[in-house]
C-alpha cells in the first residue's frame, strides 16, 4: 500500500467529516451578536429591470426598512398609506390569534394536528399584500397568513382543520393542508418543495398564454435542500418564468438548524446568483421590507424581467408543530434574544410612531380578533370536530381519485358501505 507513506496526502492530517452543530442547545446562554443586523435603510435598491447580477451584494446583506426608532428608512420604504399598514397589522394579528386558538383546539382533542407560524406572519401577509389577489401562490404549510389576507373565511379554515362535514376537502387532508382555487391558493402538499417547480410551471403557462398574472412560492430553508428546489430554480432561469421564490429562513427545520441546509457557507439568497436569478436577503420580521421586496420582485416578473428569490431572514418562534417539543433541541432563550424582534410588534410601533395607532386601539383590536376567531370556531364546531362522527359520507372517500369512478373503486365503495352497515346496523 504505497498510499500510506508517499504520494498525494502524505504528511497531511487525516480527513475529518464536518457535521454542523447549532450554537446553542437546551439550557445554553444565547448570544446572537454574531448575526449582522445592518442599519435600516442602508441597503441600495437597484432598478427592478436590471440584470440579476446587480442584486449580488443584496444576497448577503439584509434589506431593512423599519429602524430602531420605529420609522421607515431608505430607498426600500414602500411608502404605504396608513390604512394599508393597519390592514396588514390586522391580518397579522388575526393570524396569530387564529394560531393560538387552533393550537389550543388541538390540545383539547378537537383535531389531530396543527402548525403555527408565530414570528413569521410578515413573510406571508406582507407578501400577500404586495401581490395582486389573482397571482397564484404555491405555499408550504406555514403561510396560512396568505389565506387570511385574501379573505378566506375562518370558518372554512377551521372546518378543514377539524375534518368535519363542512370541510371543503371532505376530510381527506391533514389539518392545515388548505386549498382554494377561488383565492388563487394552490393545494398544499405534505411533500416538501414539490410546489416549487409547480409554481414555475404555472408561471410558464401564464407566459405562454400572454397573461399578466405571476406565481409566487414559499418554502422553508430546510426544504431548499430538496432536488425540486434546484429543478425549479433551473427551469425558472431557463424560461425566464414570472415567478417569485420565497425562502423562509426561520433557522430551524424541525430539530435541524439551518446549517443542515447549508447556511454555514453562504446565504440562501446567494444561491439565486448561481442560477442567474435576482436575489434579495431581507429582514423577514420587517413587514415593510417584505412588502417592498415582494413588490420589487412582482414588478420584475410582471415586466418580463424574470424570477427573483427572496430569503426572508426570520425565526420560528414556536415548535415545528403540535407534535414537536423544541425544548428538546434548542435553547428557550433564542426566541427572546432574536435580534430582529417580532413582526407584529414592529409594525404596531411603527404605526404608533406615525401617530396612526395606539396601544388602546391595539388592545381593542386583539380582543375583537380573539372574539372573531372564537365565534368562527363555534360556528365550525356545529359541523363537528375530528373523530365525532360528523364527517363526509363514506362514498366520498372514493370520489375524485379519478374524474369518473372506475369499476374497482365502485366495488371498494360498496365494500366500505357494507362494512359500515355491519358496524352500525341502526344507521
Amino acid at each position, binding site marked *: 500500500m504505497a498510499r500510506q507513506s508517499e504520494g498525494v496526502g502524505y504528511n497531511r492530517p487525516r480527513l475529518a467529516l464536518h457535521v454542523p452543530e447549532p450554537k446553542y442547545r437546551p439550557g445554553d446562554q444565547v448570544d446572537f451578536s454574531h448575526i449582522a443586523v445592518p442599519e435600516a435603510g442602508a441597503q441600495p435598491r437597484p432598478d427592478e429591470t436590471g440584470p440579476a447580477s446587480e442584486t449580488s451584494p443584496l444576497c448577503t446583506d439584509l434589506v431593512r426598512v423599519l429602524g430602531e426608532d420605529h420609522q421607515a428608512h431608505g430607498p426600500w420604504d414602500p411608502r404605504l398609506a396608513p390604512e394599508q399598514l393597519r390592514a396588514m397589522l390586522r391580518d397579522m394579528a388575526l393570524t396569530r390569534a387564529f394560531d393560538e386558538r387552533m393550537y389550543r383546539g388541538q390540545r383539547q382533542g378537537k383535531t389531530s394536528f396543527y402548525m403555527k407560524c408565530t414570528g413569521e406572519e410578515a413573510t406571508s401577509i406582507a407578501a400577500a399584500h404586495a401581490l395582486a389577489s389573482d397571482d397564484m401562490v404555491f405555499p408550504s404549510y406555514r403561510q396560512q397568513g396568505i389565506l387570511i389576507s385574501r379573505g378566506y373565511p375562518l370558518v372554512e379554515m377551521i372546518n378543514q382543520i377539524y375534518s368535519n362535514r363542512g370541510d371543503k376537502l371532505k376530510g381527506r387532508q391533514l389539518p392545515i393542508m388548505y386549498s382554494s382555487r377561488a383565492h388563487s391558493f394552490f393545494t398544499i402538499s405534505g411533500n416538501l418543495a414539490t410546489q416549487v417547480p409547480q409554481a414555475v410551471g404555472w408561471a410558464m*403557462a401564464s407566459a405562454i398564454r400572454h397573461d399578466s398574472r405571476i406565481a409566487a412560492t414559499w418554502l422553508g430553508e430546510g426544504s431548499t435542500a430538496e432536488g425540486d428546489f434546484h429543478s425549479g430554480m433551473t427551469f425558472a432561469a431557463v424560461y425566464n418564468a414570472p415567478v417569485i421564490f420565497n425562502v423562509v429562513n426561520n433557522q430551524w427545520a424541525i430539530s435541524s438548524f439551518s446549517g443542515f441546509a447549508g447556511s454555514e457557507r453562504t446565504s440562501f439568497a446567494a444561491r439565486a446568483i448561481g442560477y442567474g436569478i435576482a436575489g434579495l436577503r431581507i429582514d423577514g420580521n420587517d413587514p415593510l421590507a417584505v412588502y417592498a421586496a415582494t413588490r420589487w420582485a412582482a414588478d420584475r416578473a410582471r415586466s418580463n424581467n424574470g424570477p427573483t428569490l427572496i430569503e426572508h431572514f426570520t425565526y420560528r418562534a414556536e415548535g415545528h408543530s403540535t407534535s414537536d417539543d423544541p425544548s428538546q433541541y434548542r435553547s428557550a432563550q433564542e426566541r427572546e434574544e432574536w435580534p430582529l424582534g417580532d413582526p407584529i410588534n414592529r409594525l404596531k410601533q411603527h404605526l404608533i410612531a406615525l401617530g396612526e395607532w395606539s396601544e388602546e386601539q391595539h388592545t381593542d383590536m386583539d380582543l375583537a380578533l380573539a372574539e372573531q376567531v372564537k365565534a368562527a370556531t363555534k360556528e365550525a364546531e356545529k359541523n363537528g370536530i375530528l373523530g365525532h362522527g360528523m364527517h363526509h359520507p363514506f362514498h366520498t372517500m372514493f370520489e375524485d381519485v379519478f374524474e369518473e369512478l372506475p369499476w374497482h373503486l365502485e366495488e371498494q365503495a360498496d365494500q366500505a358501505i357494507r362494512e359500515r352497515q355491519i358496524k352500525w346496523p341502526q344507521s
Partner: protein
Amino acid sequence: MIEAINDALDIMLERDPDVIVMGEDVGYFGGVFRCTAGLQEKYGKTRVFDTPISECGIIGVAVGMGAYGLRPVPEIQFADYIYPGLDQLISEAARLRYRSAGEFIAPMTVRSPFGGGIFGGQTHSQSPEAIFTHVSGLKTVVPSTPHDAKGLLIAAIEDNDPVIFFEPKRIYNGPFDGYYDHPTKPWKDHPDAKVPEGYYSIPLGKARMVREGQALTVLAYGTMVHVAEAVCREKGVDAEILDLRTLVPLDIEAIEKSVEKTGRCMVVHEATRTSGFGAELAALVQERCFYHLEAPVERVTGFDTPYPHSLEWAYFPGPVRIGEALDKLLGA
C-alpha cells in the same frame, strides 16, 4: 408507430391550443426517437420545446401548467429515467384532484419509451408499469400497434386524469415476434399498421381482442402481444389473446368473459415477475373466475434481475418461455 404518435401529437396540438409538448430533445431536434419531429417548426417554440435534463422538473412544471389550465404532454426520454420524477407523479399529479376535492387537476400525459429487446442494457430496457399501476390516481396505457398508439394517445391527451403512456420502443419501427435473430419487418406489411388519417380516439379502459380462441386466454400488452401471438400461431394453439391496452383502469369484463370461456389463463409481460402487474392480473382472475379455472394461472415474465446487456435474450420472455407455459397450461 413513431409516425402514428407524431400524428396524434400533431392533431392534438392543432385541435387544442392548451396542448403543450415538452421534454429533453423534443423541440428543434424532434426527439431521439423522432416522435416529435417537425412539431416545433409547425407550432412554434412556446408549444413544443426542449427542457433541461431534469425529470423532476419536467413533471413538476407540467403539474403547474395543468393547474393553470394547460394540457401538457411531457416526454421522459426513457422509462428507465422516470424515477427522478416519481415524487411529482406519485405525490402530486396522482393526488392533485383528490386532495383538492377537484379544485385542481393534472390533465397531463407523460409519454415515455419503454421495454427491452433492443440491447438497451439496464437503463434503456425497463418496464416499470407496476410502479404506476400501484398508484391510485394514475392511468397507465401501453399500445401495441400504430393504430392503437394514435387513438390511445389522443384519448390520453383528452383525458382529464394524469396518464402514463408507455411506448414499447422495440416495436416503434415494426412488430416483433420474439425471434431476435430474424430480420425485423417494418410496420407497413402488418394489418394493424393501417392508421386512419385525422382525428380518432380509442377509449381508455378497453382491451382489444387480438384473436378469438377456445384453448386458453392470453393477457398481454405492448411488445408481448406480438410475441405471444407468434408463439401460439407456431404451436397451433387456439388461444384467445387480449391486448389489455390500458392497465388502469383495466377492462375486467373482457378478461372475465374470456377466462370464463377458456378456463385457462396465461399472463405475459416483460417486466420482472415479483410484484409485477401480472401478479395483479393473476389475483383478479383467481378471485373472479375461480370456478371456471381448469389450471393455475401461468405468469410468463422477465426474471427478477436488473435487465442484462449481453444476456438479453436469456432474460427476455421469448418463444421458449412462453411455449413451456403453454404446454404446462394445456397439459401437454
